[in-house]
């Protein structure tokens, strides 16, 4: 099939970007969206232009590296997949496809469609872990965890940190990402000792990065390639309120 592409081109963080139109012919419906971009880049290089920079790595939907706003929807029109797992059979001959980077102050553009998502790492660094140094763990089966609880924790832990939630949110909020990690750990017995400190520290870090607040619109959940539930946001809210009453989160 033949496509019209409108792709965001921006040389670097400082420069002004713009949408540039390209025509791409003979795209097979079997291509993944990123293979379609590979094809575009080969064409651009043949024509002496610079290829479009875009992040990608595993191309099987788990590393969270790829992230594109495709026709106004994070990761494109198919629910519950990343851009690399989106196949061109979801488009039609003659379609115009607008491709933009994630847009958020906390995710500054590096080049073209590549953004800097280290803000997410800093949220995890704030307290998104269980403090257990190597070697200090007890026998694994000492603490039973109900299957339903473990499954729920796994639902939250499935987050790949791609940033689609922020990209899709009208407020550019990182609540779904933050809540997924906080809930994963809060749902497990191992995570209890630091549970309320974690809630306070992660929410503080999230706010400091310049993300917006959550207004419970739910676009994040709808575009999340791992279908992380809004329930985890409620869980984080609950933990933060309780943590505030406890005065948790003080660290030396």
């Amino acid at each position, binding site marked *: 099939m033949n496509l019209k592409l409108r792709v965001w081109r921006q*040389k*670097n963080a400082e420069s002004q970007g713009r949408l540039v139109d390209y025509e791409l012919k003979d795209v*097979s419906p*079997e*291509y*993944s969206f*990123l*293979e379609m971009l*590979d*094809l575009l880049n*080969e064409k651009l*290089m043949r024509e*002496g*232009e*610079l*290829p479009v*920079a875009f*992040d990608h*790595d*595993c*191309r*099987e*939907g*788990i*590393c*969270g*590296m790829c992230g594109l706003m495709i026709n106004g929807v994070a990761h494109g029109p198919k629910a519950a*997949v990343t851009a690399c*797992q989106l*196949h061109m*059979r979801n488009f039609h001959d003659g379609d115009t496809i607008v491709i933009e980077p994630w847009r958020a102050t906390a995710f500054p553009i*590096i*080049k073209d469609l590549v953004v800097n998502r*280290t803000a997410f*790492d800093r949220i995890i*660094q704030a307290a*998104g*872990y*269980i403090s*257990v140094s*190597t070697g200090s*763990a*007890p026998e*694994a*089966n000492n*603490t*039973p*965890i*109900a*299957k339903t609880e*473990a*499954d729920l*924790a*796994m639902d939250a*832990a*499935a987050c790949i*940190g791609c940033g689609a939630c922020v990209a899709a949110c009208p407020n550019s909020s990182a609540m779904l990402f933050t809540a997924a990690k906080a809930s*994963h750990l809060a749902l*497990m017995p191992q*995570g209890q000792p630091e549970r309320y400190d974690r809630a306070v520290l992660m929410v503080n870090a999230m706010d400091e990065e310049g993300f917006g607040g959550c207004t419970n619109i739910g676009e994040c959940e709808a575009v999340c390639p791992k279908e992380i539930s809004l329930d985890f946001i409620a869980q984080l809210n609950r933990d933060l309120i309780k943590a505030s009453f406890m005065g948790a989160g003080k660290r030396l």
Partner: protein
Amino acid sequence: MATSTSTSVKTMPTFMEATLDAHVPDGPIEEMWDKHKFEMKLVNPANKRKHTIIVVGSGLAGGSAAASFAELGYNVHCFCYQDSPRRAHSVAAQGGINAAKNYQNDGDSVFRLFYDTVKGGDYRAREANVYRLAQISNQIIDQCVAQGVPFAREYGGRLANRSFGGAQVSRTFYARGQTGQQLLLGAYQALARQIESGGVKMHPRTEMLDLVVVDGHARGIVTRDMVTGKIESHVADVVVMATGGYSNVFYLSTNAKGCNATAIWRAYKRGAFFANPCYTQIHPTCIPVSGEYQSKLTLMSESLRNDGRIWVPRQKGDTRKAADIPESERYYYLEERYPSFGNLVPRDVASRAAKEVVDSGHGVGELKNGVYLDFADAINRLGENVIRDRYGNLFDMYANITGEDPYKVPMRIYPALHYTMGGLWVDYNLQSTVPGLFVLGEANFSDHGANRLGASALMQGLSDGYFIAPATVSNYIAQTSLSKVDASHSAFQQAEEEVVNRVNRLLNIRGRRSVDEIHRELGKIMWEYCGMGRTEAGLKKALELIPALREEFWQNASIPGDADDLNQTLEKAGRVADFLELGELLCRDALDRAESCGGHFREESQTEDGEALRDDENFAYVAAWQYAGDDAEPILNKEPLKFDYVKLTQRSYK
């Protein structure tokens, strides 16, 4: 080979076929590691922060090592090419991680895990390392559970297990089909904690482009900041590399697009020996290639073989739909040929069997390039919900890629390049032949012999990173007195200059062929002549084709853009240039090893049944290749393999 990179001329000991000492401690294998740990020197806690350790790679091995070093008090710098350490390709491991917990009371033990791994590796691994791996396996599970890894549970709240290829016990721990992701997040969170506390300085989007050796010791690396293009030296007391495998030399593999061999190849050129490069693993359950354009292959976890039955039509060239083929005309070739292991034979055996039936005309799918993996029986027996609970995400992934619903029609699968058992040679301490350079995880060659069993890679990466390297690296630091060196040292200056020159050289080729195109061509040569079946004639042919292609690359590759900017083509080109050299070494090793073992199948060496036939008399050794200059042939060093605990037998899974 003037077309290759310019490297300073180094003097090296030029001994032929020298015997390598793996520094395996004395004594009974059960006590070896404990005894060794006791005998190792320790570093005073107050002195640890004065020592800097560089960790290249942030996957299971690198991430866990960096975090563990920092917990001990060392000053750690960790590098990864991704934008976050959480994205290292360990994230994609699906099936699980082995441990000898024997929670299922089915007869497992440390010794059995050790035995299975040595046997699964077709008796080409070092016994002492494998035994230690089996011992540590249990601690890994404890550590990961304590970190909050949400492993699958039974209703009673205890950890669940499943079985995996190459074993008759259920010893695999798993977190749905995302075990690698969850284990990596555990290591990443431990790393994040150390970054926050200042113990680790993380350098994402930074690529290691050279190793710096001063006075015979690894003292640092030269990196390129992938955003600004800045070339920079980093000095340390120890360099730890955990940069993964080199499957992407085949272009199409299950590895991430960015996975590369540049770090280990640069280390090889600085004096680290490269062991068993020809041991590559072809994974039996991947989605078949669907066309020329394809950029990568997607793995379907081997755990699917627990419940799926593999078959092809008995009749060659059968074009009927799977559902229309009656039971009597289905050839369940693994179940028939290997009645005791059935669909759970090791990866190399399953892969070759698939190749055989496809080559002989039984292939299924439009391109006749796959075999069926059928869940109909399991769905009938257990119900769709149970199957969905076990494999839901894999089924969704399959449906996404192929447009077919695996709950209704059988999956189509075919083997693909997945893992490389070969890597930099390391001794028992995981130290390479360059003192101060330690190599962990898939990047080293150590534990899997000629074939890795499923769910063992995660185990090895974490064993190396959490438990082995922290002990052995400390021992090295305690025993070694290093001169004070900074980035102005001539060795660093020279390495930086070489890196800059190489980058400029790539940008100045200004040819006409895209880097991907050349990489694809290399992949085709590798798959054709050095894939699942290898012959002397084919390998010799590959050894002619690869240097010619390398020449073509340096004459005619098209690499637009600048050096001081995010330039993904430039990154790719540097990696492909290294693959074009590594591919040659791989074929050379495959040619030299005129036996079949594990993933290395020389067609000249097979049993009457077409199984891999080892030649223990002549090849029971580790082949460790030593770089001797761009224009010289590499030197083969050998580490003889002794088997004191496992009896060498022809593997049989019948």
